[in-house]
């Protein structure tokens, strides 16, 4: 799709023969719009940061989908403040990397925990493992380099920092982020009506518990 370039204009890029990457600052708004009003030819939409990957019903659906997505995007405006929901996640800050992270941030343990709890986080997108959310909004000093070699097992409920992200491991998996604490909240529970409690756009706040 030959389109003039500009900061807010979408770009389309094929990913194989049956998926399209749509790069746009309105990725989250487009995802919400496609959930509310699905487009013919689009089987599934998967969000990431400023990116929405569209899995197509058939490889040949691509050209028509690009046109309808561009038209849909033209009707959307940025939705400030995300979803309007806020999730408070209780955290016991006793992770094996807590002191390392505090030192890396140049803070003592209490100040580090206070800074992390003061951070206004937001669910950017879900992925990696069922219920895992990539939380954006970490202030620069709290951004931690990932481990050189991932741990083979990260316990379920671990609260972790990796690159620009914060996250909570919903169940035991391998993981390369720095572990600062743990929460009793379950982010993937099939016995609930909504097995995954958070959605892109939700605000998230960590709250220290004893």
């Amino acid at each position, binding site marked *: 799709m030959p389109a003039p370039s500009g900061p807010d204009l979408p770009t389309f890029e*094929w990913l194989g023969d*049956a998926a399209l990457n749509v790069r746009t600052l309105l990725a989250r708004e487009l995802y919400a719009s496609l959930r509310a009003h699905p487009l013919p030819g689009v089987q599934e*939409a998967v969000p990431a940061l400023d990116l929405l990957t569209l*899995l197509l019903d058939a490889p*040949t659906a691509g050209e028509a989908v690009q046109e309808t997505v561009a038209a849909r995007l033209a009707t959307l405006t940025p939705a400030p403040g995300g979803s309007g929901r806020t999730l408070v996640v209780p955290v016991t800050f006793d992770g094996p990397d807590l002191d390392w992270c505090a030192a890396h941030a140049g803070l003592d343990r209490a100040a580090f925990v206070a800074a992390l709890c003061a951070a206004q986080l937001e669910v950017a997108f879900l992925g990696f493992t069922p219920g895992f959310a990539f939380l954006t909004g970490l202030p620069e000093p709290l951004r931690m380099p990932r481990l050189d070699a991932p741990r083979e097992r990260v316990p379920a409920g671990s609260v972790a920092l990796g690159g620009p992200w914060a996250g909570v491991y919903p169940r035991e998996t391998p993981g390369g982020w720095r572990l600062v604490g743990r929460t009793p909240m379950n982010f993937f529970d*099939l016995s609930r009506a909504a*097995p995954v409690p958070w959605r892109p756009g939700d605000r998230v706040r960590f709250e220290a518990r004893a």
Partner: protein
Amino acid sequence: MSPSRGGAVGATVLRPGVQSSVQDAGRRVRALGVPAGGAADPVARRLANALVGNAPDAAGLEVTLGGPTVLFHEAALISLCGAPFDATLDGAPLPLWRAVQVQTGQTLTVGGTARGLRAFLAVRGGLHGHEVFGSRATDLRAGFGGVQGRALRPGDHLTWSPLPAQAARRAFIAPDLRTPTGPHHELRVLGTGDLTADLRESLLARPFTVSPQADRMGARLTESVAAPRDPARPSVPNVPGLLQLPPDGRPILLLPDAGTHGGYPTPLVVITADLPRLGQLRPGDTLTLREVTREDAHAAHLTQERALRQAEWMLRQAVVSGK
């Protein structure tokens, strides 16, 4: 479950095989971080279901490398499609790619296969299983769907939905519809934005070997190539058939249970028409990757889909008009 002739219903798993799990067409909730799942050889799934008059996405049993032994407590119409497994019904050879009538009390034994890796066992009516996000597919890693979210164990009970019984009819499936089972594979691929000239040369010009690390999440290849390193790379959504290149340079072809997002470079994607072949990649098999154009990929998909749909339609007619 259906009441049946005063006896037990369904079937009992006597031996589970290497890894047998309930699968169907999978789920579409990647946006919640949930992998797609579903039968790794969708052609085998569709044709096996069509042979017994099921919808294409009905749940059945995916068998891997060595199959299960199952005792039937009620009559059933079954079909086994996929790699050329040895299978018997009460000791008599069971033909693959056919609808076969099983009588109450008979035992199905699915043995091993010399080529390929997987087959799909369909039962008329479709297997029951724990339905999660619209699919009964077993997610072995996360532990949900199918039979308690795991591969079969001895003593597990399989049940299926009652459908009016139909007699098996002779129906022929053209061999060229079947997913090829190696030992050498040629996979057609398309490049992504990550495909550099160097990667094109190192990935496309040589044979690779499928390593023993080949499961429902992905098939790792043995030989390594020089991999670009970009620790700051953001995680982006995965699609079926993506070739991931982790820092050690040993490529991974993604299968249905792969995680929904990944942070490694992904220079190639297997075309849709060749995705079923990934489900038959067996450790030790060799493969080459051949780059094609998107037009080639579309044409291959249309040709395959037309032939499959025609076969499915004819097989269903054969069952519906049976007796």
